């Protein structure tokens, strides 16, 4: 019997081109539009540093493992948050496929995030995060406007409660 390691896989279909989706995943100013104010930063050469930043603050850091525009992109993922920074880096892989025939004009985007230790807190966090980020990416590319969550007073109270724990 083999133990099943945590692995997150998410598939979304986007009415766009692989070039536009790849650009959105690798361009700082475009990523900021759909990634809720976060942006990616890297020269995207294998072995180069990767960072997900909010302003000047690095939220997640990593190393570029693979960059094959416009079909494959992979980097390691290490949160810099106090509660998660003790975990070793995990790995993200984006695979982009331009659909053909009557379904042309659509991209199948598969995001695989794996290489976690068992009971990883980062795994729980990214499992909640990727569907939101990728839903926002799809909206931005299809409608021109990303998701813009509006915080109600109740939402703010919930966030404050988490931060003061």
């Amino acid at each position, binding site marked *: 019997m083999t133990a099943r390691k945590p692995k997150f896989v998410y598939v*979304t279909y986007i*009415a766009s081109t692989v070039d536009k989706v790849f650009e959105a995943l690798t361009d700082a100013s475009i990523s900021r539009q759909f990634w809720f104010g976060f942006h990616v930063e890297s020269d995207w050469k294998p072995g180069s540093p990767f960072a997900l930043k909010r302003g000047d603050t690095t939220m997640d850091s990593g190393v570029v493992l693979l960059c094959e525009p416009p079909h494959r992109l992979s980097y390691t993922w290490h949160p810099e948050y106090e509660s998660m920074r003790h975990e070793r880096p995990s790995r993200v892989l984006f695979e982009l496929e331009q659909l053909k025939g009557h379904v042309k004009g659509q991209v199948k985007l598969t995001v695989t995030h794996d290489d976690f230790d068992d009971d990883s807190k980062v795994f729980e966090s990214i499992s909640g995060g990727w*569907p939101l980020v990728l839903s926002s990416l799809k909206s931005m590319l299809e409608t021109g406007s990303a998701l813009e969550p509006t915080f109600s007073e109740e939402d703010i109270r919930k966030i404050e409660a988490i931060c003061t724990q």
Partner: protein
Amino acid sequence: MSKPSFVYVTYIQTTPEAVWNALRDPEMTKDYWGRHRNVSDWTTGSAWRHEDYDDASLVRIAGTVLESNPPHRLVLTWASPEKKDDPAKRSRVTFDIEPFMGEVRLTVTHEDLDDEMLRGVSAGWPAILSSLKTLLETGKAMPMTQKRWPGKS
């Protein structure tokens, strides 16, 4: 050992009511759900079926409405009509529709699958739900879901 399940979460710029209606409106399902429609009176305990939009005699999936709480939660049993009396081939689908910071979070949970069913629904739900999101946000579903699935009709 528990049977496999599949969970998919998507966020949509719309209202819970619009998502709830989209699950039942044949003019919408035909475009985002492979030219099929869902038929029921949608009350708890009633039968429901997923049938071809153009030929109601072609029923693909049949089951029972286990819970119906518009516009937030719909729970269905799910089976091929010829296998619906075989408990091993009967699964369950839950649609949870929640307001989320001005958007809607739609969570589809498909449980009690076997490995073959898991493969099928893992390929199907992302396509259907991506197209549903596109339809609700742009008014037009994605081309890939406007025709019947290959090999099924």
